[in-house]
């Protein structure tokens, strides 16, 4: 029972990023062990069937990862990966639905669509859409001694090469709104795009992250994804393919194995100790080459490693990382009749309800929402008809992948709405999740706001509501501190070469050898299931001689090897 166990690499947490990293490393031939605390891996890529025949998606819904090198490198199709429609089909240019305002659904003007197509690399020959996405997300931050400017930042290099008219130094100071102002007229359309950015990674009004914000949106719109849904089996199906890729390449993945300590000896991470109730006899396991934390950065340093090995200055920086803005209240509605749009939201090509983005109207409403969530950080007090949210409808899924097989019922959702992060909520951590009466209150709020666009969201029709508050999410899924879906937000000070802090930006931990970080909260590019953290981290692990990938590997074209390390560019050796 207590036989010593050793692996080349131990990864803490089988979320999206821990699993991607495991798949890459196993494919390099390393012996890899992944330890997951929950009964099921996947972290926030999960599906639940709370009553027979009804599937809900408490967390991730859309597959933003279309441009990942991982599809080619890890060959997920071999492990059963499928989308639930044919991703190769042609999507007509006019987006099927525009933003919804209090008046109705807005038809996006052709010139605005062209403006959007231009900044996301869809115009011209060749299109540079995928290059732009890869340069934004799928490339590791540069070594610390490289100046980050308009000539070195990867997405700037892409603009420079493919669309020099967009390449200006100011772009690096812009907010997404500033960028959109130059190419798009409709205020509602801009607010709509900015809101998608807010719930996809970077904020519309943050200076310095204009392009990342635009790209967060671009990666979930055609052609990167033809419908705003995920893979067959939903996001958990995508996880299954990743997980099976890791396992097929020899990785060991164990659930119900909470890691309580990352063992540091003589400045080196040498293994982990599991909690006493882990489903395993042996509670201490050793790593020959590396321990990689796929758990949130705060518990990683504050608990798993702890002040025993770290100084107060460093710990303070970790404590200060911002969870703000990432907390979403997720709601699903079970109904007896299919939901129906009110007259002004009906769309000729869409008879049936398929969700949408509501109250994407003007800057005033935008600020009203953000001031509450980010500024005052108090419980929502926005009138329901001015609340901003997005929602997926059942018709977004393929017919052969029904979300509801319970005859006579329909499941609608999730409806996701930004709410204050519980840890910072001035009304208290339990403010939006304080027992059944509270749930009822917020359920009713969601029903009211949904009713702005739906005519039959009434108590006769709605049979059941499942809601998942950020506070609940934090504990259902320990990756999501504060329920924050991106872990740490992507503002100027926590993005790219500053993510999560300058000294940690290349996934290494100063003064602790053999320790690396791969949780979204600790690594560029942050949230979303992009297989990006794993890919980016690979560059660093190759540099440190931890792994040597086979001919299937290719590095990011914008990657700059660190001096004195082994280059991740095959065949280059030490630089």
């Amino acid at each position, binding site marked *: 029972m207590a036989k010593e166990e050793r692996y080349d690499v131990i990864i803490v947490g089988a979320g999206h990023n821990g699993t991607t990293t495991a798949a890459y490393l196993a494919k390099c031939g390393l012996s890899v062990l992944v330890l997951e605390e929950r009964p099921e891996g996947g972290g926030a890529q999960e599906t*639940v069937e709370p009553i027979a025949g009804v599937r809900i998606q408490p967390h991730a819904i859309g597959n933003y990862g279309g441009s990942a090198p991982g599809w080619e490198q890890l060959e997920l199709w071999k492990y059963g990966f499928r989308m639930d429609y044919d991703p190769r089909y042609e999507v007509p240019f006019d987006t099927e639905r525009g933003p919804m305002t209090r008046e109705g659904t807005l038809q996006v003007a052709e010139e605005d669509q062209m403006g959007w197509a231009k900044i996301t690399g869809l115009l011209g020959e060749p299109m540079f859409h995928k290059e732009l996405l890869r340069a934004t997300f799928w490339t590791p931050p540069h070594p610390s001694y490289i100046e980050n400017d308009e000539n070195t930042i990867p997405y700037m290099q892409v603009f420079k090469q493919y669309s020099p008219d967009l390449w200006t130094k100011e772009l690096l100071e812009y907010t997404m709104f500033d960028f959109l102002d130059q190419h798009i007229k409709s205020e509602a359309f801009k607010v709509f795009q900015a809101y998608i950015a807010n719930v996809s990674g970077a904020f519309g009004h943050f200076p310095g992250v204009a392009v990342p914000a635009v790209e967060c949106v671009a990666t979930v719109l055609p*052609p990167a994804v033809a419908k705003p849904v995920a893979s*067959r089996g939903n996001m958990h199906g995508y996880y*299954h393919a990743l997980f099976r890729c890791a396992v097929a390449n020899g990785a060991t993945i164990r659930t119900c194995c909470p890691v309580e300590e990352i063992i540091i000896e003589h400045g080196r991470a040498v293994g982990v100790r599991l909690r006493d109730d882990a489903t395993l006899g042996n509670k201490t396991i050793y790593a020959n080459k590396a321990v990689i934390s796929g758990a949130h950065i705060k518990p990683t340093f504050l608990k798993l490693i702890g002040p025993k090995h770290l100084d107060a200055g460093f710990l303070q920086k970790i404590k200060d990382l911002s969870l703000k803005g990432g907390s979403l209240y997720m709601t699903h509605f079970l109904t007896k009749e299919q939901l129906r749009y009110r007259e002004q939201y009906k769309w000729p090509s869409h008879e049936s309800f398929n969700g949408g983005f509501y109250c994407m109207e003007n800057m005033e409403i935008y600020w009203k929402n953000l001031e509450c969530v980010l500024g005052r950080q108090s419980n929502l007090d926005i009138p329901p008809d001015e609340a901003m949210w997005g929602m997926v409808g059942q018709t977004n899924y393929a017919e052969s992948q029904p979300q509801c097989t319970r005859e006579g019922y329909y499941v609608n959702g999730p409806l996701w709405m930004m709410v204050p992060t519980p840890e910072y909520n001035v009304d208290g951590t339990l403010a939006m999740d304080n027992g059944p009466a509270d749930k009822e209150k917020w359920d009713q709020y969601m029903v009211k706001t949904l009713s702005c666009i739906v005519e039959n969201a009434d108590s006769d029709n709605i049979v059941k509501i499942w809601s998942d508050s950020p506070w609940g999410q*934090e504990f259902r899924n320990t990756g999501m501190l504060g329920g924050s879906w991106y872990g740490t937000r992507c503002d100027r000070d926590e993005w790219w070469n500053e993510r999560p802090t300058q000294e940690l930006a290349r996934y290494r931990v100063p003064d602790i050898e053999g320790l690396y970080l791969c949780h979204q909260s600790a690594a560029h590019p942050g949230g979303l299931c992009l297989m990006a953290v794993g890919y980016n981290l690979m560059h660093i692990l190759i540099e440190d001689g931890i792994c040597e990938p086979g001919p299937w590997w290719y590095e990011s074209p914008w990657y700059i090897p660190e001096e004195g390390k082994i280059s991740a560019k095959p065949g280059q050796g030490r630089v």
Partner: protein
Amino acid sequence: MMEFKGYQHPQSYFPEFPPESEWDVIIIGAGPNGLIAAAYLAKAGLKVALIERRYEIGGGLATEEILFPGYYSNIHAIYHMMVDYMPVLQDFDLGRHGLVWIKPNLQASMVFENGESLLLTRMIEDTADSISKFSIKDAQTFSRTMGRWRTIIREILAPATFIPPMLPIEITMALQKTDVGQELLELVEQSPLDIVTNLFENDKVRAMLLYNICMWGLDPRETGVGLFVALYLDRMMNKCYCQGGSHKMANSLGREIVQAGGVILDSSQVNNIIMEGGKAVGVDLWEGRTLRAKAIISTLDPQTTFVDLVGGENLPVSLKESVEGWKYDKWSLNTLHVVSEEQPKYLPKDQWASESFMTIFGFEGMDQMLEHWDNVVAGKLDTSIMGGHATCESFWDTHLVRVPPDRAHRQVSFFQHHAPYNLEGGWEQKGPEIEEAILQKWAKYAPNMKKENIVMTNQETPVDIEIRFPNMRYGSIKHGDYKPIQLGCFRPNQECSGNATPIPGLYTGGASNYPGGCVLGGSGYLVANKVAEDLGVTKWWKPTKEMEKYTKTYLEG
């Protein structure tokens, strides 16, 4: 001048699993049997595709967050009775995936209104001690009988579970070879009720034993199923809990399959089995993909496999008749899953009664129990005499509760009882009433299960079972009833009980095949053996020690 070209992109963004593919073996359904078959065959070097309709593999091995958000339950199998004998657990090292079994000594308790209790334990004498409070004679009978039955199970019934079925006459001849065999033969012809009433005198003792014996759907008055009395009682004293939830077993097997090169396609429904020239050659999935193979194994119930997937028109007459005459389980289960502020504390002073793996309550004696079962068969439920069993899952498993610290003391339990699929009045209508009655009954036997302590409930009715698993037709947890003409070499019929079917290329190996339902690891193992033999691959595994001894003693010479 830039020109807009539409959203067409030269590169495909998502490379996908191909629309058409070739395999050695296709397995339909990733329940315990499909998983086991796939694991053996993939490791034998065959190219295996395992296809599952749900988004999660496991079939009856399902640990899911149905008390949403934050609480996991074992919504189907939780009591694992064959852990001691299943070849799959000996042939594969599933422990390396973190599979851990817990076999408590306190297997079951039965509690009564007046605060009395009876225990069924792994250690025979602990049960006998408990019975002695009611009848010293019964206690002694129990000690002596169980000792002998244990031998019967170890030497005959357990190993036979994993060996192809024989005709009744062959069995009789084989069993006559030993004393143990002869003792078993004496049991066979009796009904469960006869056996229990002949052996034991005290009504409560009888009730407790009969409940455990018939819990999985034996008809108490049916003759010819006596061997199951010994089998179930012994196995109900040896149930295991899978730490982290039953799904862990599914996941461990899934990893073995994938590591051996097998592919698992979940969220994929097989719509039909492709027939060419009278042979089964492949399957069509609802999503439009086609897979072809040399052998196709269905683990679904006979009507789904043969009528829906193969098509009635493709069946030989005799097969068609037997499939159409297939009888689904005569009763199903209704389960009320509950989150409560505290672990249920039952009336008895004896704290063991509250700490056993399973707690039976609601029946004060055997007559009530029989009446309840008669009601169920007749499509009725009289909640005043209804009983069942409960388990506090989180007492055994800390991993099932994932909630904020102020709620972390909460417990997940369920109460389960036999119930008709076709309930008079319908489940939709009657469900809430029944839920209310269960909670009242629970609070009567475990006073702290009062309203204020109940946080959340979720009732899974027989109809819900069928919605989750259409192959569990009419809520049939075993894919078909246990009656002599649907058991042994007649399960599902004489033509298919050896796992091959009259349709070349098509095999069956789910709960509707010998040895039957529950997580026995039987039919999946047997169909893997058969397919390996037919495809001419070397078996990398050998029969277990018990199987070898059984074969030598009873089947050879």
